[in-house]
């Protein structure tokens, strides 16, 4: 191939000896361009650039050819794959001749962080960053932090009380001087780049002046609503709250919220305002409160926006919403909880105590009609709920499962324990749930027992649907806001499934917890620690090196037509007095759309020069 001074084959070019081979050859043969034909540049471009630089050559004299992911792994026809490999290598060899030495730019990193989502993942990440002395903004959409974990009763497999282990962390957030907690708030806009993100946060009005409210809750007592009438979100509608409320007793911050949808003062303006009377000189209630916009600049962002449980209305044959005694697993968490709507008593919506309970696994998981993936936590929380229901009511509990998945520390042991406690197991997917028809309110679960090889119809008093975990319904909007991706299942996409599990394709933005995929609490906490460590590594480096692939104007050739100016999404192009365009290198992110549009060809892009791409095209289309 013309221009090639030395061609070498080595099995693991990315290994230390492989890299040393490159360095040695550069020195021995005076090579001034390097092409490596191996795996995807997304994996090892950095490695090889580094190796090239160590041999004293500018790292941008290097180009990588993707022969693995784009060729050998995807083509069965070997001669055709070899021909393609030759084309790609020829293209790279021709391209690299036109490479010029480039320098990486450096940008400072702001030493603070934004954590979005105040569930256990966000709480843990914020506390870790704060304990390292970094300032953290923790933004939570709901009036309180705590997330789903605050709604759970006990946690598997150890049966620790969820609130007992979570609430100390919640109060630690509130009392940590390094954490600014904005609950009832949402991120509205994100701009900038790694190290320098400008974020706009909308703080919704809670109609309570935060600095004045002491959390005495007397206004709730005094509300003109003598009885709580509004379905309570925290208890999934199983309990009731008043228009002025606190989500749950240990809520952080300890502040009430007024719901303008149901408050009489908002609806008619004619309320006696007994809440204001009782608040008296504290004067913390403000019906005219407006939303507030906060603007912050942070170096790094951790997304911990969590999940939503599957809505079983989408599986109509399970009768959720139709038969009152069909519950979701999250509802049962609230029912068994001592601070729940029934004070921890398991009573059905018709007031009866269940004598038999059927737990249906994989609702909204492992099903081509809903979600194909396994939600990972349902088998274990179903076992936990079976144990708790049995312990509290002595009811007969039957689990209908497809496969029992207990692959964690002490999980299998917990499964055995629950089985020994007398919980029954039927291996089969429930096909239908219908009323027994004799008016006693019982429901019949129909399933094919695949171990017995027969269809069984089992009457129960209560059905628990073990609902799976899904991405938040607005996950798509959120990922666009932060300029990251989602995988096919809708959860946020990590940079690499194994080796960069908390990074994203946006530098400086990390993911933790169930927003990245279903996982249990230990895995979530481990991941939030990893995300915090990544954020810390970035902050403590102080500066970040940015890729040099920015666009630039050759001013002599610029005709001053201004075509480029409105094209730039980052407003990086300005128009000078001498009627020339100029690109601010710091603002340019290197997409190259202005380069493609410039009619005079005066805008060019480092690493993606027109000539380099023409050479690639030429290399591909050279018919040998």
């Amino acid at each position, binding site marked *: 191939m013309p221009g090639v001074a030395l061609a070498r084959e080595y099995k693991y070019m990315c290994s230390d000896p492989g890299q040393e081979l490159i360095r040695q050859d550069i020195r021995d043969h005076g090579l001034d361009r390097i092409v490596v034909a191996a795996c995807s540049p*997304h994996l090892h471009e950095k490695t090889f650039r580094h190796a090239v630089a160590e041999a004293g050559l500018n790292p941008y004299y290097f180009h990588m050819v993707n022969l693995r992911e*784009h060729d050998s792994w*995807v083509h069965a026809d070997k001669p055709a794959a070899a021909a393609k490999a030759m084309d790609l290598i020829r293209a790279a060899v021709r391209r690299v001749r036109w490479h010029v030495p480039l320098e990486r730019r450096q940008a400072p990193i702001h030493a603070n962080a934004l954590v979005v989502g105040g569930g256990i993942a966000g709480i843990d990440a914020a506390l870790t960053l704060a304990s390292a002395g970094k300032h953290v903004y923790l933004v939570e959409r709901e009036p309180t932090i705590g997330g789903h974990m605050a709604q759970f009763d006990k946690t598997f497999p150890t049966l620790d009380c969820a609130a007992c282990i979570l609430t100390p962390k919640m109060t630690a957030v509130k009392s940590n001087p390094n954490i600014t907690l904005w609950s009832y708030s949402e991120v509205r806009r994100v701009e900038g780049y790694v190290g320098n993100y400008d974020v706009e946060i909308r703080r919704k009005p809670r109609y309570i002046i935060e600095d004045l409210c002491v959390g005495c809750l007397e206004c709730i007592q005094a509300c003109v609503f003598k009885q709580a009438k509004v379905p309570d979100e925290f208890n999934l509608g199983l309990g009731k709250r008043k228009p002025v409320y606190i989500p749950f007793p240990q809520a952080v911050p300890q502040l009430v919220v007024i719901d303008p949808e149901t408050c009489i003062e908002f609806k008619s303006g004619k309320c006696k305002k007994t809440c204001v009377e009782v608040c008296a000189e504290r004067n913390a209630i403000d019906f005219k409160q407006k939303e507030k916009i906060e603007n912050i600049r942070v170096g790094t962002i951790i997304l911990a926006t969590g999940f939503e449980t599957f809505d079983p209305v989408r599986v109509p044959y399970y009768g959720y919403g139709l038969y009152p005694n069909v519950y979701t697993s999250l509802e049962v968490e609230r029912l068994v909880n001592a601070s729940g709507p029934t004070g921890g008593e398991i009573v059905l919506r018709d007031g009866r105590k269940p004598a038999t309970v059927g737990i249906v696994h994989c609702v909204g998981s492992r099903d081509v009609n809903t979600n194909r993936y396994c939600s990972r936590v349902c088998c274990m929380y179903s076992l936990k709920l079976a144990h708790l229901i049995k312990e509290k009511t002595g009811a007969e509990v039957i689990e209908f499962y497809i496969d029992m998945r207990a692959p964690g520390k002490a999980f299998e042991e917990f499964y055995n324990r629950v089985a020994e406690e007398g919980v029954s197991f039927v291996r089969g997917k429930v096909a239908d749930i219908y009323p027994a028809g004799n008016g006693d309110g019982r429901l019949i679960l129909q399933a094919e027992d695949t171990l017995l090889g027969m269809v069984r119809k089992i009457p129960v008093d209560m059905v628990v649907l073990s609902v799976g975990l899904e991405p938040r319904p607005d996950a798509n909007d959120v990922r666009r806001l932060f300029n990251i991706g989602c995988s096919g299942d809708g959860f946020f996409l990590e940079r690499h499934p194994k080796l960069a599990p908390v990074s994203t*394709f946006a530098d400086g933005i990390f993911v933790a917890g169930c927003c990245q995929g279903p996982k249990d609490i230990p895995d979530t906490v481990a991941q939030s620690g990893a995300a915090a460590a990544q954020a810390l590594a970035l902050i403590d480096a102080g500066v970040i090196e940015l890729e040099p692939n920015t666009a630039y104007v050759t001013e002599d050739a610029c005709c001053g037509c201004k075509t480029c100016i409105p094209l730039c999404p980052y407003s990086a192009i300005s128009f000078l007095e001498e009627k020339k365009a100029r690109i601010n290198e710091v603002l340019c992110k290197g997409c*190259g759309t202005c*380069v493609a549009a410039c009619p005079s060809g005066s805008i060019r892009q480092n690493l993606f020069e*027109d000539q380099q791409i023409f050479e690639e095209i030429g290399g*591909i*289309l050279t018919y040998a």
Partner: protein
Amino acid sequence: MPEAFEPKIVAFFCNWCTYLAADLAGTSRIKYAPNARVVRVMCSGRVDPQFVMDAFAKGADGVLIGGCHPGDCHYQEGNYKALRRVELLKRLLRQMGVEEERFRLEWISAAEGERVKIVIDDMVEKLRALGPRVPARRQEVA
């Protein structure tokens, strides 16, 4: 029997979506036609119409541009700019006698490895049916 016609496709894939989708197809060992050669650009908006013309001039049987889905561009809206240029370019190519099937713009996200296969296989099939470009001008070995 004469050798079956194998079209050659020059594919411009954006770094953040379609290039990664092709990487994912690789990691998942999805098998597809070996006719496309990928040129990596940071954004589909970087694809200068000259690149497409150049590829056809040098004998490409087809040109494929792959970008992020609308609204998902890593650079906010570069893919819309690609779309605008592609629409204009399609008219121009039609006038020059380049059949419509030879030039495609596809949105393929980083999660859609399977779609890389679907698009490339489909394009190859259509180009095979269409046959070589007439007159095909082929460059000598450089």
